[in-house]
């Protein structure tokens, strides 16, 4: 099967790249083994938030201090700035609205109520003002009875530290009680499915209004609109006071919504999305990839002028840790890592973990390296890349989105 570009991996990075190409009329296929890291999404895209323990308030200014192997150093500060500004609009055309600015990080609120610097946060999700404070003195934190993935007491104790008085309430509804029959399935996405029903949503809003009487605002878990992007705003309009949603423990309802939104948008542009299919191996000849084979397509190869590897990190099996080796399983690309397993990790779980920076090696344009040479038409993007620590630096989504946009630009420049 012939395409202009074949992308391996359909998460944030692969989809961003695929959409950019399909928007320009390129025939594009994405192969994706399973669902992506977006299902664990906090609701905020990070660009660059920390240097060690030091806070970074302007990510663009901080880029010059990064190592040369960092993906942002390869892009250069001006490209990072240009693409990052474009990204906000890019998501808005798809129907996902974000708040935040490229040259000024803001604080998001984590599922346990702690503040953390980030770049773009989905509208309606919790952020703090530039002063690092909530705009209210007296809020009501409302949970659904029996929902264990939203930690009201942690959140309240963090908020109290900021001088905000908190009241905690739990709402019971017969529709939710039924979910509790199976305590392990009382999860955000299942609650969101129940709240998909307009009548249930209205009753829930009424209960929230009455339980939070006397408070300035309500804080709720982000469990609205798993398949329908309008549910959150519909719910908001039913409330008699301002609301702020906070991320829950996974699965992330806003992340799932974003994943579905991006996939549908890509397909409506004519993109081919092969979900549940795994790229098995690639044919390389004369420093070029000619085709890949996948589990489902069998003897029918996927052929293209260019290929993009967006297969994610260890978590998504884009990288595999064997007892003595870290491998990129599709092409066996060169992976930056130590040969000594003991170097991979730090015994202190909360310290910087060396393996987080392991990944596929590329040149400055993100051409992947294979046995020491760069492959002319294979690019690597997103969390499969080496040279950065998404967790410690808070840079995950930024690297995934910006490397994807940059590679799409390069492919488009080359012509068909």
């Amino acid at each position, binding site marked *: *099967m*012939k395409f202009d570009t074949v992308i391996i991996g359909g998460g944030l990075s692969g989809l961003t790249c695929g959409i950019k190409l399909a928007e320009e009329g390129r025939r594009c296929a994405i192969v994706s*083994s*399973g*669902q*992506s890291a977006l*299902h*664990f999404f906090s609701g905020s895209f990070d660009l660059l938030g920390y240097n060690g323990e030091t806070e970074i308030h302007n990510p663009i200014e901080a880029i010059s201090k990064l190592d040369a192997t960092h993906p942002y150093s390869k892009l250069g500060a001006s490209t990072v700035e240009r693409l990052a500004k474009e990204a906000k609009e890019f998501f808005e055309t798809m129907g996902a609205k974000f708040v935040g600015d490229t040259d000024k990080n803001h604080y998001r609120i984590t599922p346990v109520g702690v503040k953390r610097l980030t770049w773009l946060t989905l509208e309606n999700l919790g952020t703090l003002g530039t002063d690092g404070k909530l705009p209210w003195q007296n809020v009501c934190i409302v949970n659904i009875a029996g929902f264990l993935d939203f930690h009201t007491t942690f959140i309240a104790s963090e908020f109290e530290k900021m001088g905000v008085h908190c009241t905690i309430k739990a709402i019971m509804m017969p*529709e939710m009680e*039924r*979910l509790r*029959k*199976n305590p*392990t*399935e009382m*999860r955000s*996405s*299942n609650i969101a*499915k129940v709240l*998909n029903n307009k009548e249930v949503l209205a009753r829930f809003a009424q209960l929230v209004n009455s339980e939070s009487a006397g408070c300035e605002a309500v804080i709720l878990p982000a469990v609205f609109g*798993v*398949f329908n992007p309008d549910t959150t705003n519909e719910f908001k309009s039913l409330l008699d006071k301002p609301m702020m949603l906070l991320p829950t423990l*996974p*699965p992330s309802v806003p992340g*799932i919504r974003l994943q579905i939104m991006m996939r*549908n948008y890509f*397909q*409506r542009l*004519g993109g*081919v999305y*092969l*979900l*549940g*299919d*795994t790229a098995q191996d690639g044919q390389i000849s004369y420093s070029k990839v000619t085709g890949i084979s*996948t*589990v*489902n*397509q*069998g*003897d*029918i190869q996927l052929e293209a002028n260019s290929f993009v590897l967006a297969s994610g990190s260890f*978590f*998504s*099996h884009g990288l595999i840790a064997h*007892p003595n080796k870290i491998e990129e399983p599709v092409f066996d690309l060169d992976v930056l890592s130590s040969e000594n397993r003991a170097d991979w990790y730090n015994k202190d779980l909360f310290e910087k973990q060396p393996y987080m920076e392991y990944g596929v090696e590329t040149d400055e344009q993100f051409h992947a390296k294979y046995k020491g040479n760069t492959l002319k038409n294979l690019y690597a993007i997103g969390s499969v890349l080496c040279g950065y620590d998404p967790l410690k630096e808070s840079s995950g989504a930024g690297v995934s989105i910006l490397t994807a946009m940059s590679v799409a630009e390069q492919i488009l420049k080359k012509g068909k």
Partner: protein
Amino acid sequence: MDKQQYNISENNFEQCIKCTVCTVYCPVVAVNPDYPGPKQAGPDGERLRLKTPSFYDEALKYCLNCKRCEVACPSNVRIGDIIQSARIKYGKSKPKLRDMMLANTDFVGTMASPFAPIVNFSLGMKPVKYVLDKVLAVDSHRQFPKYSSQKFVSWFKKHAEANQDAYPHHVSFFHGCYINYNYPKLGQDMVKLLNAIGYGVHLLDKEKCCGVALISNGLIGQAKRQAKLNIESIRKSVIVNSMPVIGASSTCIFTMRDEYPHLLGINNQDVRESIELATRFIYRLIERNQVKLAFKSDYKARIAYHTPCHMEKLGWAIYSTSLIKMIPGVDFVTLDSQCCGIAGTYGFKKEYYQASQEIGQSLFDQIESAKVDLVATDCETCKWQIEMSTSAKVDNPISVLADALDVEATMKLNNVELR
């Protein structure tokens, strides 16, 4: 040897990282609060069941076996297989008379065909529907697919078989129950299309229903017997006669390729790659420049494609849609991939009727608002469900291609000469 690394059970439940992604995409969870969901029913439950079978939960019967959970799982856990295997191994509820009737497509079809007009008439009659509904618990909202008075096989033997040897190339055709008893036209379309590109069509030595309905209704012994017979006939075709086996139903093909080894323990490794959908078979020939299609210049239609669940699992929708898009007069509409809710015989059962319709609702809405002339899909039960629930007409991609095909021009393009 690192034991942890190599010690993985047949259904790899230990690969599960407890992310709950599967549950997000399960169509049943959204509408049936009694169903524990794929994670709990699959890998989590398996752990417990291995300890004590008494942990088996009868609610596993609500699983449609659509495999959408498997498609979504980032760890490639065979969740659907775990659930179906557990039902086979631990399920205690005996199949009812109704389940046997719905499952035995072959037997019921054979009985019905000679009396097709009467059967069709009476299955549509209020009193009969009332009995089906009240006594057998087949939901009265359901319209039964009509039985044809001439079976496909009888038509084939009478009108087509004699000159098939004259074609330069050859394939075997697994027609399945639906084509044979309910919709011989699809079989005739298949013969027309394949003949036009130079392929003679042959029936298998012996063909039985693929058994998908037997498996989902718990009639495992019979399913195994039929599967063995089918695989033996397929072996003869593929290995002895060098003829690959093609079909028109995504469910039959998926069942014979993957459910036979995974659920029935029947080894098909030597022939699995030679069992496929006709659309994939034809696509490959076109891509390798071995075949060309010519279409009627006046064919015009706005067509949407619905991806059946088993087609999503096979990952082959691309072949059917690519072929349809090759027809110059087609205005193609993409639908979001989602379950239509019927899942074979599931939606026929009274207790599941409502859930079945709720699952499909947003698909039906999408189809209605797309204002298409036709919905194309590779599954016959999806066809019933969509035709019953929307105003759209539904056809198999093979029929769409056959209708749009300029047979003479195609034969000329491919230099088809009969011997």
